[in-house]
């Protein structure tokens, strides 16, 4: 594979099988031979192909239910594709949600370690970066309080500060910018710019055409699991606004 390519997706398809009634009990399974094929096949992604080079930023756009999140989850290796191939060149950290594993009962201090380690950091690394995380999140005086006593803004800030410490070549972001107040969104943009300047590859889902126009190189517009348009970010964003 070409060394410049960070992610290459070829003819990717994913189908979810949705039974008429969800069979999750044993008896229903024993009856399965009779009605195993009843139900609906739901093709979430159909024949998706694209390529992202190192240092590029790709936006994935589309209405709700168009398959954006499923695509992101397949790239994050949470779902397995049914058909097609994915090549990932480099280390990848997914942010499908900020603060994965956060527990409201644990203190801010404990949650920093929990979340950081879940994101792939080592304990030693977090120890080294601890002060930086706490300062960026501006929560030092609340470190020993359980997370449930934090305001939503504080929680998001903390989650973001931890996420920002992770080192990877490729970042997957699922509408992370939609959270937080204006001040925080501004902060996010600065971080985003920094990542870009460092030459990181970013794939992100967004509904905001202006954000995409200002940050992304390429974009994909999905509709009902198919790529409607793939190419220059501002062209795709314009098409999305029109549709």
């Amino acid at each position: 594979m070409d060394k410049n390519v960070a992610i290459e997706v070829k003819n990717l398809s994913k189908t979810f099988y949705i039974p008429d009634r969800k069979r999750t009990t044993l008896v229903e399974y024993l009856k399965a031979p009779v009605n195993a094929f009843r139900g609906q096949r739901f093709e979430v992604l159909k024949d998706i192909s694209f390529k992202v080079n190192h240092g590029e930023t790709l936006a994935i756009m589309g209405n709700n239910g168009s398959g954006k999140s499923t695509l992101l989850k397949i790239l994050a290796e949470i779902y397995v594709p049914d058909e097609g191939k994915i090549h990932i060149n480099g280390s990848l950290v997914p942010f499908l949600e900020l603060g994965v594993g956060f527990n409201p009962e644990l203190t801010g201090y404990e949650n920093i370690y929990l979340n950081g380690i879940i994101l792939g950091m080592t304990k030693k690394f977090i120890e080294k970066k601890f002060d930086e995380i706490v300062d960026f999140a501006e929560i030092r005086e609340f470190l020993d309080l359980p997370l449930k006593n934090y305001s939503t803004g504080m929680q998001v800030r903390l989650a973001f500060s931890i996420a920002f410490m992770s080192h990877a070549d490729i970042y997957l972001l699922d509408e992370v910018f939609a959270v937080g107040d204006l001040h925080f969104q501004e902060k996010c943009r600065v971080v985003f710019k920094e990542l870009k300047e460092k030459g990181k590859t970013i794939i992100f889902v967004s509904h905001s055409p202006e954000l995409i126009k200002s940050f992304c190189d390429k974009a994909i517009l999905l509709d009902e699991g198919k790529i409607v348009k793939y190419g220059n970010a501002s062209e795709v964003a314009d098409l999305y606004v029109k549709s």
Partner: protein
Amino acid sequence: MRTKQNYIDLYKEFFITDFKLRYKHSLLGFFWVIIKPLSIFTVMYLIWSSVLKTGENFALYLLLGVITINFFNEAVTFGLQSLYIKTHIILKINFPREIVVFSAVTIATINFLINLGIFFIFAFINHLALTLPGVILAFLGIIALVMFILAISMFLSILGVKFHDIRHLVELLLQLIFWGTPVVYDVNVLPAKIRDVVNLNPLTHILVLLRGGLLNNPQMSDHLWGNALLILVLTLLFVIIGYAFFKNNIKRIAEYF
């Protein structure tokens, strides 16, 4: 990129936080670990020692049985729930999922070791003589027991996500297994037919190793070593099969939540 060190940290982080959360906001906290088996033991001792003609060291015999079966119940239950209670993390990020099962079994194992400590305190008070070979035999038994539980958890964690009835089934089976294991009684007093059934239960043989090693030292028979070896080999085999099953099914597990 996840490193080996991250896997180790993740394993530790999972069982330490789960352990913390389990006893948060409870007054007695950590003491629940020993309160549960000890109170079951006390009630059973009071009843059975007045009903049965009990032999020497019956209290220690029963205590070891209760602690062991309690470990089995708890560990299997934790193992069953292990993947399910981590749904919110599994659906958001990829990591070696078996870590979740390992950490669940570890929590139960730590609880067991603490209770075993209590057993040794009682044994000391009762002037029970321990011998090195006896302790080694019991240790082999514990290793076999942990492997047995791990293998079961590998199956149950997956099945518990795919079929929700498994939880009720396991609850029922655990109660049946309690009576199918010589916790209170001695296998040899059973009629031949029932004894054959109880002997099919691997826990019976593991318990015989533990008791043989820790309680019946003077007459610890040599055939127990052969048994220990056989049980170790079989449980190891079971772990390998369980792991293969787990690996085979885990890839698509996110679709079943």
